[in-house]
């Protein structure tokens, strides 16, 4: 893929560096230690954190933000731990994902994959109840990831019916877990969401 120099956004790296977690991007000297030790790269070689950083430094904003790869990091911190330049790549990927979500909300790019939907669904449960409500999370995620209530429920049943039965048999998913375990002072958590945003 030839780089279209006239389409580069030289400010992209500054945008990343201004995000919490993205501060270290300029320190990267492309040694590839992150990529060599990455457990995701080992299974899916298209995931190359070094390359994502270099593309970002060059200003290939749209290519980076619309790539599937930025959503593959499992935040295991192996790269951050081994990086000789203390780039904190796990945190950096988080900063890039947040920029991607913002740009997608503004209609400027299209997100790949479903992790943004999952993260949003997770945070919605937290905002409403103060704690994780797994059934609420799954229902919202599957509905949105599969484009509608019916298709979502079919997919959820396929993926989770057996796991649900396993939990039920072991008494891990009794009638109580059907309902959210709401904290008492949900107002305090709602305030966090109002003032910090997602």
């Amino acid at each position, binding site marked *: 893929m030839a780089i279209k120099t006239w389409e580069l956004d030289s400010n992209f790296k500054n945008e990343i560096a201004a995000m919490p977690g993205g501060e270290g991007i300029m320190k990267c000297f492309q040694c590839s230690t992150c990529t060599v030790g990455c457990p995701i790269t080992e299974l*899916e070689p298209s995931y190359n954190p070094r390359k994502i950083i270099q593309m970002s430094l060059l200003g290939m904003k749209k290519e980076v933000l619309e790539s599937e790869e930025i959503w593959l990091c499992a935040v295991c911190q192996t790269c951050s731990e081994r990086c000789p330049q203390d780039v904190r790549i796990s945190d950096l990927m988080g900063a890039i994902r947040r920029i991607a979500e913002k740009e997608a909300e503004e209609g400027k790019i299209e997100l790949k994959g*479903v*992790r943004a939907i999952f993260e949003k669904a997770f945070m919605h449960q*937290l905002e409403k109840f103060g704690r994780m409500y797994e059934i609420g999370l799954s229902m919202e995620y599957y509905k949105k990831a599969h484009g509608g209530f019916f298709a979502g429920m079919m997919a959820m049943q396929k993926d989770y019916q057996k796991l649900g039965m396993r939990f039920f048999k072991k008494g891990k998913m009794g009638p109580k877990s059907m309902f959210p375990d709401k904290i*008492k002072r949900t107002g305090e958590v709602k305030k966090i969401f109002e003032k*910090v945003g*997602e």
Partner: protein
Amino acid sequence: MAVSKLAYYPGCPSETHAIEQDMSTKAVFEKLGIELVEVEDWNCCGAAEAENPEMVYALNARNLAIAERDNLDMMVTSCSVCFYNLARTNEAYEKDAGLKDRMKAIDPALEYNGSVKAKHVVDVIVNEVGLDEIKKRIEKKIPVKVAPYYGCYMGRPSRLGFDDPDNPETMDKIIELLGGEVIPYSQMKAKCCGGPLMMTRSDLAFKMSKNLIDAAKARGADCIVTACPLCHMMLDAKQPDIEETFKVKLEMPVLYFTQILGLGLGIDPKKLGLNKNIVSTKAIEEKVI
């Protein structure tokens, strides 16, 4: 023993799929005579899904502030992800002078002075209670071969973790005290299980977890021991799904650290929730002498 009373942060899975971790943690501390005071009205730590660090700090400051107001100076959690979020919030309080005021401005409930140390259960057992004390209290031997699986956050990032980032060994020491044999597993001990990708890229997550179970099996392990509910979910609850996906039989029991320790301390298996693990732990229980 240095500690007698601790704030306890159970984390969300403690009420559903990790109920046996919660049960065994409480049983172990009760047996050791350490009081656990559950953080009153605690909220979720944000797990791996809260991408905005400021959000993570706010969610965890609320929990730490509750413990601080109750005059507790140490908080213990049995979840590695919760530990990571609590620990990095404390780190941010140390390094970012303006954070305290920013948090307070969100809501008075978030008024926190940074005085509560956050610790993982394994850290408390090995480094606060201490190996000598544990040794004295062991009532039973568990002569089984164990693959100790640590996952990510006990040692990484090392500025927050309490164990070696690549070759952790705190759990090994307890397993050896219990009469267990730690199998050679150093290449897998701290390699990610794929948990955070469970819902969105289960194909990758399944492969990552299968590799961990395969390596344990190949080296003759009778069980895997882990201390994180997300790792446990992948290795235990999802093990039948992994078997079905790859058309293999694994049948590898996966015990929580507090479950195997509890067995050694002579606690009744039912009290440790061993009947709630998805893959049967009977073979391990039968070897306790």
